[in-house]
Structure formats: C-alpha cells, structure tokens
C-alpha cells in the first residue's frame, strides 16, 4: 500500500511544472532521436505525464518529479522506437544512461530549448505555424489551449501543426543552429514570434484570461532564455525589457468589476515591482553597443511610462523615431496620441487624418476621445458608435459604451 506523505515524496509541485517540463522533455527527446521523431517525442511526453497522473495520486509526488518525468518519457520513446518497424534495433549511441537532472543537464536543456525554438522559426514555415509550433513544442501548450488563446478552432491549429511537422520531415530540418547572417535573420524571426505571443496575451481580447496571461509570461521566459545565451544581442535585452515593463502593469489593467483601466488611470501601486526591476535591468543591458532596434525604442517608451509625471515630450520623440523605422498606421496612431498630449487634442486629431484604420476600434476610440475633449459631442458619439461596430472584447465594449454615454450626457 502506498504510504501517504512517505519520506522521499515532495510536498508541492512547482507552478506550471508539467507544462514547463513538457517543453523541455520534447526538446531533449528531439535532440536525442532527431526532428523526424517530433511526434513520437510529444506522444512520449504525454504518456509519461499520464503515467504520473496514475501513480502519483497514490504513491505521492516523487522527490525529483522532473527526473521521474524525464525517465518515464525517455523509456516510453525508446519502447515506441523499438516497436516501430523502422527501427528494429536502437543504435548504441541512443541508449542513454539514466537521466540525472543536475546542473550540467539543466544547461544542456537550455541549449536544446534554444535550438528547438530556432527550428520552429525556420523561414520554411509560415509565420502563424512558427507561433503555433513554438507554443506547442517549446511552451508545452496543448492544441486546445493554443486555439483558445488565438480564438481559433482546435482543428485549424491541429492542421497547422501537422503541416508544419510535415515540412520539418520532408525538408529534413535539423536542430543545427544557423550561422552568420542567417543567425541574425533567424534571431529576428524568433524575436518576432516571441513578441507576437506576448501581444496576443497582452491584448484585452475575449477568451480565457488565465491562458492569455500565461502567454505573456511564456514570451518573457523565452526572451530571457535567449538573453541568457551566447547568441544574445542588445535587441534581445530590449525586447525582454519591453515585455517586462509592459507586463508589470498586468495586475492594474482590469479592475474588480472586470473593466478595462486606461494606463493614466491605473493604480500604480498595483504594478508588479519585480517585473519593473527586471525590465529596467534588461533596459540597461540593451543600451550596450550600437544595436538600435524597434524594440529599443518601444522599451524606451515603456520605461518612460514607468515614471510620473510622464514625459510626453520624450515619448513623442520616441514615436517620431519609431515611425521613421516603421511607418505603419498603428505606430502613427500611437504617435497621434503622444502629439495630443504634447500639443493638444486638435493637433492630435489632425495627425489621425489619412490613417486607413476605419475598421479598427482603437483608432475610432482615440478619435472619439479627442473629439470629446474638443467638445464636438455629436462627432465624438458617431466615432464611439462606429467603434462599437468593430470587433473588440467585452471590457473594451463596456468602455466604449461608457464613453458614448459621456457624449450624450454632456450634450
């Protein structure tokens, strides 16, 4: 009979241990058995976790749960390979001694994870597949969780993953790290994926909040994984700084009634101090050398927002700079907000002219807000009404309705 709480059993599981280990074990198994066996690695990890689910509730959680899971997954993978017709006998070098999760092993795992995410971001894969594959294999998210986070249906995500894995198999993509200019390009592609994941989590869309917040922290974790490796460049620190400085606001963005709180109205005492210091730590590291990326400029903006009173003149300068690097409508919209803070609502409104963002609720909300400030109640109301027609989350919808009510009340 299993003794409850027997010596040698752990009392607690680290938060997200299973999800974290899933990514690490897949990366490890793929390194050992090759990218062609990515599916097998994933199945082995799932099976190992199911075994844990069956044993631990009776036996207690083992003292080294990570090691238990690694060993179980490795054994499942070896058995599956032996059974499969393709491999009758396992090559000598694949028969591993017992997995010991020590410091050396931890280090090699970080390397495995890094290689894995660099493979997930290969140019041969479509941008959306890169994101889905990274979350699945490195992040340990399930198909359903990824689908929920991206408001897609399970089948669509599953199909993308199948296709991505087929590409990996057919092109025989390996975990080999690119070099020289290709490394640069791939690093940028990896950072793009990481920032995309972060923004998906950060944006106040509908969907399950917890999973979305997890996306932010997973992006932050991946960013730090790269910033702690030998291929780090200042722009990696800039991205980590940007994400940490934005994520520090997460606890203050939604109030008790689930409503959106604008940056200027947030209770800053609720901001996460650890993320703030992490952000500034990486911000300083980002300033070494002459690498200047969009992440640098955005991190500078996020850093400026961390201090009150907010230096809008500097923020406007940064948006000018960002706009010269990336003249997109979204950057122009943010720049218009900064202009209105420095030069007033009418100059801000003028800066919105010509932006082709009529279907975007944030554009219409900003325009409505500026019109309201100028006392143009009727036009402001029109703008908020148009914004309510666009796709947005429930908290955003309530926010827009309140603004619309303000226009009608004032009139």
């Amino acid at each position, binding site marked *: *009979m*299993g*003794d*409850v*709480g027997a010596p040698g059993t752990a009392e607690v*599981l680290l938060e*997200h*241990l*299973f*999800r974290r*280990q*899933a990514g690490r074990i897949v990366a490890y198994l793929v390194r050992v058995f090759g990218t062609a066996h990515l599916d097998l690695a994933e199945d082995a*990890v*799932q099976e190992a*976790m*199911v075994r*844990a*689910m*069956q*044993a*631990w*509730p*009776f*036996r*207690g*959680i083992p003292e080294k749960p990570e090691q238990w899971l690694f060993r179980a997954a490795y054994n499942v993978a070896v058995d599956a390979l032996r059974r499969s017709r393709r491999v009758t006998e396992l090559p000598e070098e694949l028969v591993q001694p017992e997995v010991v999760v020590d410091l050396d092993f931890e280090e090699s795992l970080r390397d495995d994870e890094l290689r894995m995410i660099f493979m997930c971001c290969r140019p041969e894969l479509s941008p959306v597949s890169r994101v889905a594959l990274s979350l699945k294999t490195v992040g*340990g*998210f*399930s198909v*359903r*969780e990824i689908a929920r986070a991206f408001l897609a249906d399970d089948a669509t995500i599953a199909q993308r993953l199948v296709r991505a894995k087929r590409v990996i198999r057919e092109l025989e993509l390996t975990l080999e790290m690119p070099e020289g200019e290709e490394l640069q390009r791939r690093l940028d592609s990896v950072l793009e994926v990481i920032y995309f994941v972060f923004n998906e989590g950060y944006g106040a869309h509908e969907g399950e909040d917890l999973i979305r917040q*997890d996306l932010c922290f997973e992006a932050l974790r991946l960013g730090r994984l790269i910033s702690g490796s030998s291929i780090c460049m200042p722009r990696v620190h800039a991205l980590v700084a940007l994400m940490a400085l934005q994520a520090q606001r997460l606890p203050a963005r939604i109030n008790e009634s689930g409503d959106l709180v604008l940056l200027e109205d947030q209770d800053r005492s609720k901001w996460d101090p650890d993320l703030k210091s992490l952000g500034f730590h990486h911000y300083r590291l980002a300033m070494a050398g002459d690498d200047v990326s969009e992440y640098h400029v955005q991190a500078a903006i996020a850093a400026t927002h961390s201090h009150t009173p907010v230096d809008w003149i500097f923020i406007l300068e940064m948006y000018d700079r960002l706009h010269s690097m990336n003249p997109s409508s979204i950057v122009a919209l943010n720049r218009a907000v900064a202009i209105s803070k420095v030069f007033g609502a009418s100059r801000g409104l003028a800066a919105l002219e010509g932006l082709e963002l009529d279907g975007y609720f944030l554009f219409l909300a900003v325009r409505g807000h500026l019109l309201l400030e100028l006392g143009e109640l009727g036009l402001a109301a029109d703008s908020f009404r148009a914004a309510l027609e666009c796709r947005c989350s429930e908290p955003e919808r309530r926010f827009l309705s309140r603004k619309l009510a303000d226009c009608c009340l004032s009139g």
Partner: protein
Amino acid sequence: MPKFVLLLHGDPSAWDKLSPEEMQQAMEQYRAWMHKPFNVGGDRLTADAGKVMRTVDGQTKTTDGPFSETKEIFGGYYMIEAADYDEAVQRASDHPHLKMGTVEVRQIWEM
C-alpha cells in the same frame, strides 16, 4: 474508527485528452486530497482488465478480466477512516476522481 475503501472506477484514456497544465491542476487536487488526515493509504492498479479465475466442474479456469460495455475499469483504491457510511460518503464527496469516473464506497468488516 471503522475503515472504508473507496474503489475508483474510470476510463484511463480520459487522461490522454488533458493538457500538461490541466494534468497538473488535477494532480494538485489529488495531492490535496491524499494528505487529508482521514486518508490511510491506497494503491493504483495497472490499467488493464486483469484476470478472472473461477472453478467450473472442479477445474479452475482463468480468463481475461471482465469486459464491460463501457471502457471503465477498476483503477485503484483509497482507504479512509470514517464513523459510518454517511461520513465516508461525505468525506469522499470532494474527491477529484469524481470528475472523471465513479467512486464505490465499501466498509471494511471489523471483527
């Protein structure tokens, strides 16, 4: 104190559909339950139907375990202490296994 066994029946493949995060959440619930003071122990059975032995015409025959219509199998048991059936049922009522399968409560005979 009288002892009771909780016989857990369920479909082991139900776990396959959970994500690592969901498994961990379920594990936390099991862990919390396992440490309740009235829980005296338990064991897990292998996920198969087992063997059934019976004597027919003086000869012992062994067959593969009972096949039922559902995929549910007897997967494990816990032993708990309780004053009577009412208390045993009440103590088992928040067992996380009830989310995936059934729990049969039986009292152990005391001499």
